[in-house]
């Protein structure tokens, strides 16, 4: 688009001219330029220059007989945009007008001159009277001026430059007057030319003039901003021009076509611009398609074909740029109802990228044709001389030879041969390659931005091709690599083949052997269908060659010739050492996503999923290749994650290579009778594998060696999870599985699990009986080696709640509160005698509440070691004890395989001692406790004690365990020692001198006297503490069992009754029964007492005195009754 002249590219702007008062020109120009629509100004320095506008004397109206030399004059548009104004504004200052008559006369003559000049061109006229500040001009003088200039009053504008507000006002008045006049001018001119068109068509004059007049009308309409009319006339001109193609005979054939196409291009450009400015993208695109359709086939004579392609390319480029520029194209694209029903537009036709791409395409055509034209004309140098003086002539699309004749220049028309020579020389000046790359790049970027990958790839491929041809292999390779990955993914084999061909050549040019081999191998392995190549003749200039089986075989042979070292690459320009040698070995890696999986696919399956250490298992190694010819492998190396399992398979048919002897590294070497890979046929090899190390045994890779210095490392794949080759899915292909056994093909894995060796160490938990709450229960653990030495042994101890408690990890238990541990691991003790020095400081020794970790010293075979776990129960509950020993049987290395022995034991926790207590009142003394009387039924009430009376507390400890216990002592402890006990508790007699033996179920009792001394109603007795131990031979630590005794109520009894009677009575001999009632109240109490005798009802009983005793007992006095009873039968006193 930049090639077009400026006046064509921009919309026309009205031109006015200013003359007189030059100091004001700048301000007026500025104002007019900022008007909407803007007006350009042509300022003349003085009145004498007005004569420039006068029409040059020439034949105004060429006679019909006269041959029109061209369609459009080259400078006509420029003239009207820059040199011929529509309006002339003459500025006069007021003093010129109101001065003396001489001045007035001068003004008058100037006016006459101007009018004469303007009349010839119909240029409109306007007068500006500049009135300085404070000055004024007479009404009559103005009238006279107007008459003289023959102007309407509104076209005489008064300008007052000194007053800013007035100036602005008058400037805008001037502006609108100028715009109006300019509009009138262009309308009049248009009308005039239109009239001529009508006249011409009637008189069937030359078609060129018709086109020219249409063009002019359209341009005048554009000046007026009458876009619709402009469009109509441009289209008229365009269509008329198209009719001219076959009919005109004016110029030599080639130049005639060139002229028509150039004019068509201009007209088309104008139309497209107008349509796009109007936001009519759809119409513009349709118009372009018509334009393209009507001129595409106008190729012209064979020697000038390149001109046609260049022209075509330019059409696409310019339209693309126009689309690019008009923002409407982008915003409205989705809402466009594209095209008509029968010829819908594709989405791309409204995208600039599409046009750039095609522009590049045509430019390529042009380049090809130009090269042809160049090669045909051998005499390049002499052409240049002739072409130098050729210049564009006065008409659009025409060229002429410029002849110097002294000072004069003359134009001489060219013959077609001369013109072609000129065009060829011109064409040679341009570097089409870079132009093409630039165009394609624009397109590529545009597609990439739209995320249209496939379109972009096509562009990218074309760019790559251009780079390749331009010798920029690096750029080409980058692009091709990108594209190849897309085609690989989508499986477009033919396209991939083509791209790989270029990549291969790039690699060859660069001398990178590895890439060359990779690309070649991939090409050779591509499933290029051989069905189509017989009918199709591909061109030979693509570096890939025809996509056929024969070509694949050829490439295959090339590669293996190179690999085996039989041939170097002869066709390399840059360096000739493109060989695989000892110094330059080649190693290819094929992983799971590599495109080279086609070349070599290694599937490895273990026959068993779990094996014992040192037990042999079978492994099947299957190789598949899609290369067109059979491949002989010299040596296969199978690698495992346990490197001592690696083994090598040698090809028996090949002589052992010298190099292989060095790198055996002591691996097992197997020999196979044949290691030949045929196309799409699994090579299955089955071998034994044995590993001593437990854990995972995985086959990592298979390295195939072909030729002395070429290796392919192929990642091993499990048949079960192997992805098939997407490119090789054929309807009629037999499904082959990597192993013969179909089950193995479906489930086979490249890894197997090797179990741990059986432990040869005994772990014993020697626990006896249930544990007792409170004691440190000892669980002896014995580790005795029966076959293995124990290196870096480690005991792990876990205590788990039997009822579904999880195995607490040490971290979790920390979060728990201490109370939650009803059972805890207290310690681990190593028996005396074993020297403690063995336990190094750095050895692990961790004990948590329910978890312990303890290291076991080194044990030789046959030795044993033991330790004791101390576990303490706080509550009676069963607990599972897990002990596991991990050790390595061979060495101290921490990485060595560990063997684990597990043992578990459920231990019941039981309560050993149950403590109970009872209160007893003193013998035959009965205080009246009111609370007992009131609530007889309530037995749950805490015991009540009389105040200041001696009570007896009986504490008993019962052995509820199943083993005999030794009771070491029993005491009552004060709960809060600082405040002192509110009662006195005394124990009659000494503490136990000797431990008391309690067999299961036996009870031990101890008597305490309790005298409450305090006034409070509650009495805290304290805690009963029982010290006991198991009655076992060994010295077990004593255990203290505590139980807090409940509080008792204390009451002061109002009455205390004491009874006194002899311990026995003699039959028939009366005895005295003394009843003593003590009133402890402050008041006199009435007493009523009666004596009853609890007897068997049949027995006779005599009460001597059974009468009611009624008396008063005074305060703090005792009333004593003596009752004499004589017994008649042998009775004991009641």
């Amino acid at each position, binding site marked *: 688009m930049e090639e077009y002249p400026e006046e064509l590219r921009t919309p026309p702007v009205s031109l006015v001219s200013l003359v007189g008062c030059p100091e004001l020109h700048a301000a007026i120009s500025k104002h007019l330029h900022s008007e909407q629509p803007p007006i350009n100004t042509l300022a003349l320095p003085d009145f004498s220059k007005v004569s420039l506008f006068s029409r040059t004397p020439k034949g105004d109206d060429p006679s019909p007989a006269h041959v029109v030399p061209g369609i459009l004059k080259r400078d006509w548009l420029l003239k009207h945009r820059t040199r011929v104004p529509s309006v002339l504004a003459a500025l006069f200052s007021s003093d010129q007008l109101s001065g003396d008559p001489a001045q007035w006369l001068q003004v008058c003559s100037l006016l006459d001159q101007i009018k004469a000049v303007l009349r010839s061109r119909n240029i409109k006229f306007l007068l500006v009277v500049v009135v300085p500040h404070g000055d004024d001009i007479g009404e009559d003088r103005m009238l006279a001026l107007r008459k003289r200039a023959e102007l309407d009053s509104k076209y005489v504008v008064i300008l007052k430059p000194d007053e800013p507000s007035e100036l602005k006002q008058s400037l805008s008045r001037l502006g609108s007057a100028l715009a109006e006049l300019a509009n009138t001018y262009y309308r009049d001119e248009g009308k005039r030319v239109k009239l001529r068109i009508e006249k011409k068509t009637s008189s069937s004059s030359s078609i060129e003039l018709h086109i020219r007049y249409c063009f002019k009308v359209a341009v005048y309409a554009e000046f007026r901003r009458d876009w619709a009319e402009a469009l109509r006339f441009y289209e008229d001109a365009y269509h008329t021009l198209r009719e001219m193609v076959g009919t005109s005979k004016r110029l030599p054939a080639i130049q005639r076509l060139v002229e028509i196409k150039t004019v068509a291009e201009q007209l088309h450009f104008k139309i497209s611009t107008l349509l796009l400015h109007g936001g009519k993208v759809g119409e513009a695109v349709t118009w372009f398609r018509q334009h393209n359709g009507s001129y595409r086939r106008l190729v012209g004579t064979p020697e000038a074909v390149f001109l046609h392609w260049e022209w075509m390319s330019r059409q696409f480029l310019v339209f693309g740029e126009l689309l690019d520029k008009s923002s409407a194209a982008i915003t409205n694209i989705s809402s466009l109802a594209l095209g008509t029903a029968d010829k819908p537009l594709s989405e791309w036709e409204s995208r600039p990228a599409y046009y750039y791409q*095609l522009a590049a395409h045509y430019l390529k055509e042009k380049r090809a044709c130009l090269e042809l034209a160049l090669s045909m004309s051998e005499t390049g140098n002499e052409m240049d001389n002739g072409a130098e003086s050729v210049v564009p002539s006065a008409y659009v699309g025409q060229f002429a030879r410029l002849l110097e004749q002294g000072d004069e220049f003359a134009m001489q028309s060219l013959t077609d041969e001369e013109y072609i020579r000129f065009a060829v020389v011109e064409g040679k000046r341009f570097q089409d390659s870079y132009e093409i790359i630039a165009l394609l790049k624009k397109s590529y970027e545009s597609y990439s931005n739209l995320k249209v990958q496939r379109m972009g790839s096509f562009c990218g491929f074309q760019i790559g091709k251009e780079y390749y041809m331009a010798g920029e292999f690096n750029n080409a390779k980058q692009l091709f690599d990108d594209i190849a990955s897309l085609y690989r993914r989508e499986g477009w084999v033919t396209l991939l083949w083509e791209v790989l061909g270029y990549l291969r050549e790039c690699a060859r040019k660069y001398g990178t052997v590895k890439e060359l081999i990779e690309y070649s191998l991939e090409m050779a392995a591509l499933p290029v269908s051989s069905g189509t190549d017989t009918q199709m003749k591909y061109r030979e200039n693509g570096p890939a060659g025809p996509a056929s089986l024969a070509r694949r075989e050829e490439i295959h042979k090339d590669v293996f010739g190179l690999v085996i070292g039989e041939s170097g690459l002869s066709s390399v320009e840059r360096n000739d050492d493109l060989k695989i040698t000892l110094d330059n070995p080649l190693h290819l890696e094929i992983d799971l996503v590599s495109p080279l999986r086609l070349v070599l696919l290694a599937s490895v399956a273990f026959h068993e999923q779990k094996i014992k250490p040192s037990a042999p298992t079978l492994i099947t190694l299957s190789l598949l290749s899609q290369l067109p010819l059979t491949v002989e492998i010299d040596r296969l190396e199978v690698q495992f994650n346990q490197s001592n399992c690696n083994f090598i398979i040698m090809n028996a048919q090949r002589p052992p290579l010298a190099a292989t002897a060095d790198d055996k590294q002591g691996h097992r070497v197997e020999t196979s009778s044949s290691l030949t890979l045929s196309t799409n046929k699994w090579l299955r090899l089955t071998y034994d594998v044995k590993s001593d190390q437990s854990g995972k045994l995985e086959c990592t890779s298979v390295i195939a060696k072909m030729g002395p210095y070429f290796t392919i490392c192929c990642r091993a794949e499990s048949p079960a999870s192997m992805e098939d080759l997407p490119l090789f899915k054929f309807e009629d292909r037999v499904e082959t599985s990597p192993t013969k056994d179909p089950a193995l093909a479906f489930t086979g894995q490249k890894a197997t699990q090797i179990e741990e060796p059986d432990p040869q160490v005994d772990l014993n938990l020697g626990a006896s009986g249930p544990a007792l709450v409170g004691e440190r229960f000892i669980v002896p653990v014995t580790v005795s080696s029966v076959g293995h030495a124990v290196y870096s042994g480690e005991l792990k101890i876990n205590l788990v709640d039997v009822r579904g408690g999880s195995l607490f990890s040490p971290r979790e238990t920390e979060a728990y509160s201490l109370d939650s541990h009803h059972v805890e691991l207290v310690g681990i003790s190593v028996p005396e005698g074993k020297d403690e020095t063995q336990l190094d400081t750095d050895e692990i020794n961790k004990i948590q509440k329910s978890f312990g970790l303890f290291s076991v010293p080194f044990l030789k075979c046959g030795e044993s070691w033991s330790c004791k776990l101390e576990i303490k129960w706080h509550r009676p509950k069963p607990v599972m004890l897990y002990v596991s020993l991990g050790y390595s049987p061979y060495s101290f290395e921490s990485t060595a395989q560990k063997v684990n022995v597990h043992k578990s034991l459920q231990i019941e926790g039981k309560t050993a001692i149950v403590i109970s207590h009872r209160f007893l009142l003193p013998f035959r003394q009965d205080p009246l406790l009111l609370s007992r009387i009131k609530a007889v039924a309530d037995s749950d009430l805490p015991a009540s004690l009389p105040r200041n009376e001696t009570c007896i507390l009986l504490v008993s400890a019962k052995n509820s365990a199943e083993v005999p216990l030794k009771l070491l002592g029993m005491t009552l402890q004060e709960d809060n020692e600082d405040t002192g006990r509110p009662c006195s508790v005394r124990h009659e007699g000494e503490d136990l001198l000797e431990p008391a033996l309690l067999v299961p179920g036996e009870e031990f009792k101890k008597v305490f006297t309790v005298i409450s001394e305090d006034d409070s109603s509650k009495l805290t007795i304290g805690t009963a503490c029982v010290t006991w131990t198991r009655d076992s031979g060994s010295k077990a630590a004593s255990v203290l069992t505590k139980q807090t005794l409940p509080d008792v109520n204390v009451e002061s009894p109002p009455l205390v009754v004491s009874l006194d009677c002899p311990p026995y009575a003699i039959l028939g001999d009366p005895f005295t029964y003394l009843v003593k009632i003590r009133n402890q109240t402050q008041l006199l109490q009435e007493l009523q007492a009666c004596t009853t005798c609890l007897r068997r009802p049949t027995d006779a009983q005599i009460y001597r005195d059974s009468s009611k005793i009624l008396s008063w007992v005074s305060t703090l006095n005792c009333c004593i009754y003596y009752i004499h009873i004589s017994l008649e039968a042998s009775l004991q006193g009641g």
Partner: protein
Amino acid sequence: MATTACFIIVSRNDIPIYEAEVGSATKREDAAQLHQFILHAALDIVQDLAWTTSAMFLKAIDRFNDLVVSVYVTAGHTRFMLLHDSRNDDGIKSFFQEVHELYIKILLNPLYLPGSRITSSHFDTKVRGLARKYL
């Protein structure tokens, strides 16, 4: 019959499973590659267009110079793409419909794995016959 026509069946995962040059013109040397490139690039448009309409025949969706790409999308999202220079819309439609029937017959073959290449010579012959008849 069209002078240039390149017919390709593209499986739902964008892999071409059948390709045939069915034009009557003497082959230009680099045509086959170019045709495939154009068809591959047109997949981008098919991808957008296929979901905007319920019709299977998408008509001409792309053009490259005077070559037009017509596309037919089956219910299983297999795409039949034809690059041609003829303007015979009805013929193309009939061609696609008949090829669709052939393709369904291929799919009914229990030994055919959907998405794999069609290598049946019978299918090939039939398709070429249809091309001669309709294009």
